[in-house]
């Protein structure tokens, strides 16, 4: 007997005659059975979808796309001590990644040190602990910082300090900041929606975010100064259209901030990037990324008046959709990830993290991460899809869907603008409501079987959740080691030098929002100040508690 109580033969006959029940995309666009020239009526090739490399870049930002260079293959990594993570990074290099991608633990995210009384249990748990200059030194030991492309993922709060650590370690090795290539996740707005407690209030977050943009604009021409993370919003349950609209609205809020600081749009817009999802609805995701590219180009050129073509380009990384993965029959996730990664490549991605199949169960093991990388390599080297730019351009369906996503996203953008921009939309709780509405609907559709997820609400036998590679566990001693290491640092450093540097930081911070804190933060790091101490000092000047968790008092 099959699941629905029919005999095997009846089930077989049903299966033979079965046709798709859901004829809408994953985000709810009704879809016809065929698309024809009528569906792209009114489109103008030169205006709307010219060759790749031409404004508005619907078909890609480079004329030759991957013929010029493959996308960067990087896999997010971070756990335990900086040395633990360094080992995994070296392993990844050995296996053929083309960029590195480091993620921090939650205490670091919050801007507190590992020896904070509430950090126990979390140090090095979901990322690496990066509290002092020494940590960054260990993290990057043996890695040629002048040659690699490094992506540093962190919440907004510690971003300025982590980037300062990175620059200082490079300098110690004789590498100038101008030579550093990579990205800092510098997106304080989105952080309010990825679940972490936003440790810095929005005014201070935005100030530090603009400090980063300003510093990098002047000193780090190869560095991406800010990334808008619409991926985390998508993971929260919003749909493809909302992902585009919310992401672009956040990017506009940052641009407004940087312009207010007196920067010129063309000085910084070309060093911005986006961090997007690639979910399971194949064509919709491709259309989504193409639509975002066209919309962004028009916004930056027409609304902000940017003149430099590089400012118009929507450059993006993709993280395949973790939320599309399920624990049941987990090896199936490898297939989901492959489709999602393929969609990203067909959409002309610049940098790609493909998930590991065991992510619904734990952090990835070395083996599952290798399979994720191999997935990218199979796409790159075997399938042949990277030879032609935007191979789906001109498809009646894909062009039509691209247009429809653009139209709906533009409508949401208008709505946000009428509210007074993204910061207002967040402040009033509007965005929260939109996210909750979408995510609850998503869950209900699964339960009503309007969305089929194989292994979950269909073909659910066997229900096993076994991962052949076992489950990743952090090294048992790592947390203790890291806590002891920072305690030791605090005892051994020169207290007088430290206090001077903290005093100076306080002075500079008091000079107001327009005063860039980068140089003073670097001095404090040289004096062996820690993440929590630097952030706490700045927080106090801005009228907030030294400790975002209100346990510690400032020792200075």
């Amino acid at each position, binding site marked *: 007997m099959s699941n629905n109580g029919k005999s095997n033969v009846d089930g077989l006959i049903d299966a033979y005659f079965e046709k798709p029940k859901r004829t809408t995309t994953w985000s709810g666009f009704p879809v016809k059975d065929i698309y024809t020239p009528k569906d792209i009526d009114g489109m103008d090739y030169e205006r709307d979808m010219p060759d790749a490399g031409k404004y508005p870049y619907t078909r890609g930002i480079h004329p030759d796309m991957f013929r010029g260079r493959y996308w960067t293959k990087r896999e997010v990594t971070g756990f335990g001590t900086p040395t633990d993570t360094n080992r995994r990074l070296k392993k990844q290099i050995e296996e053929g990644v083309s960029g590195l991608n480091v993620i921090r633990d*939650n*205490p670091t*995210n*919050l801007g507190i040190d590992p020896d904070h009384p*509430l950090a126990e*249990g*979390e140090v090095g*748990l*979901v990322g690496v602990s990066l509290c002092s200059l020494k940590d960054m030194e260990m993290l990057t030991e043996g890695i040629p910082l002048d040659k690699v492309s490094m992506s540093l993922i962190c919440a907004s709060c510690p971003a300025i300090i982590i980037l300062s650590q990175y620059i200082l370690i490079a300098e110690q090795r004789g590498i100038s900041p101008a030579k550093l290539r990579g990205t800092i996740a510098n997106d304080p707005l989105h952080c309010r929606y*990825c*679940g*972490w*407690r936003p440790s810095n209030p929005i005014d201070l977050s935005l100030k530090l975010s603009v400090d980063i943009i300003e510093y990098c604009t002047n000193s780090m021409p190869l560095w991406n100064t800010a990334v808008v993370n619409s991926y985390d919003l998508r*993971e*929260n*349950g919003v749909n493809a259209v909302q992902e585009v609209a919310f992401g672009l609205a956040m990017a506009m809020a940052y641009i407004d901030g940087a312009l207010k600081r007196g920067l010129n749009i063309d000085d910084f817009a070309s060093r911005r990037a986006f961090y997007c999802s690639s979910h399971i609805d194949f064509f919709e995701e491709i259309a989504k990324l193409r639509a975002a590219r066209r919309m962004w180009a028009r916004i930056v050129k027409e609304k902000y008046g940017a003149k430099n073509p590089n400012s118009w380009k929507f450059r993006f990384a993709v993280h395949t959709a973790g*939320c599309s993965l*399920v*624990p*049941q029959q987990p090896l199936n996730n490898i297939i989901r990830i492959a489709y999602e990664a393929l969609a990203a490549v067909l959409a002309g991605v610049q940098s790609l993290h493909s998930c590991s199949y065991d992510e*619904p*169960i*734990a*952090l990835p093991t070395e083996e599952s991460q290798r399979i994720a990388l191999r997935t990218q390599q199979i796409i790159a080297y075997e399938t042949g899809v990277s030879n032609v730019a935007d191979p789906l351009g001109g498809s009646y369906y894909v062009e039509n869907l691209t247009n429809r996503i653009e139209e709906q996203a533009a409508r949401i953008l208008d709505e946000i603008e009428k509210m007074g921009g993204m910061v207002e939309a967040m402040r009033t709780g509007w965005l929260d409501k939109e996210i*909750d509405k979408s*995510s*609850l609907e998503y*869950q209900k559709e699964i*339960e009503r079987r309007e969305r089929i997820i194989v292994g*979950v609400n269909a073909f659910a036998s066997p*229900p096993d*959740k*076994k991962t052949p590679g076992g*489950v990743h566990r*952090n090294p048992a001693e790592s947390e203790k080691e890291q806590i002891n290491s920072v305690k030791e640092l605090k005892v051994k450093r020169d207290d007088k030098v430290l206090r001077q540097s903290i005093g100076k930081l306080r002075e500079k911070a008091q000079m107001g929002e327009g005063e860039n804190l980068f140089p003073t933060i670097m001095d404090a790091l040289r004096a062996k100040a820690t993440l929590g101490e630097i952030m706490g000092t700045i927080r106090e000047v801005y009228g907030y508690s030294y400790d975002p*968790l209100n*346990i510690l008092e400032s020792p200075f």
Partner: protein
Amino acid sequence: METAKKEKVRVLLTRHVFEGHDIGLRTIVNRCRESGIEVIYYPRFKDLNEVVKVAEEEDVGLIGISSSTGAHLYLSEVLISTLKEKGMVMPVIVGGIIPDKDASTLKGLGIAGVFGPGSTPDEVVSFIFTLLDRH
């Protein structure tokens, strides 16, 4: 009768301040409320004393913790021992990214229900009703 009984079911659902994921927990909160369970939603507790204090003040019948960071064993152990120290008898359920093989360890610690990946909101709701009707 049925509704009167349901109105008495009052639970505390919470997650740690370091917990980066909340969509699962928010879904459970919503579903519990839709099902007539009274939920004290307390996101972002700083330590487990705080959880126990809120549970006591709000007079709930059950504590539910969501964890996706891998801290579930640590959090459960400390919560159970804090409850014991206070002499409180209170069922605790845990959900989130929890490897299957940790479920028995958690139950050994005294956790009443474990809802790892793949659990449905309805499973959680009916577990709460069954458990609290029995109490």
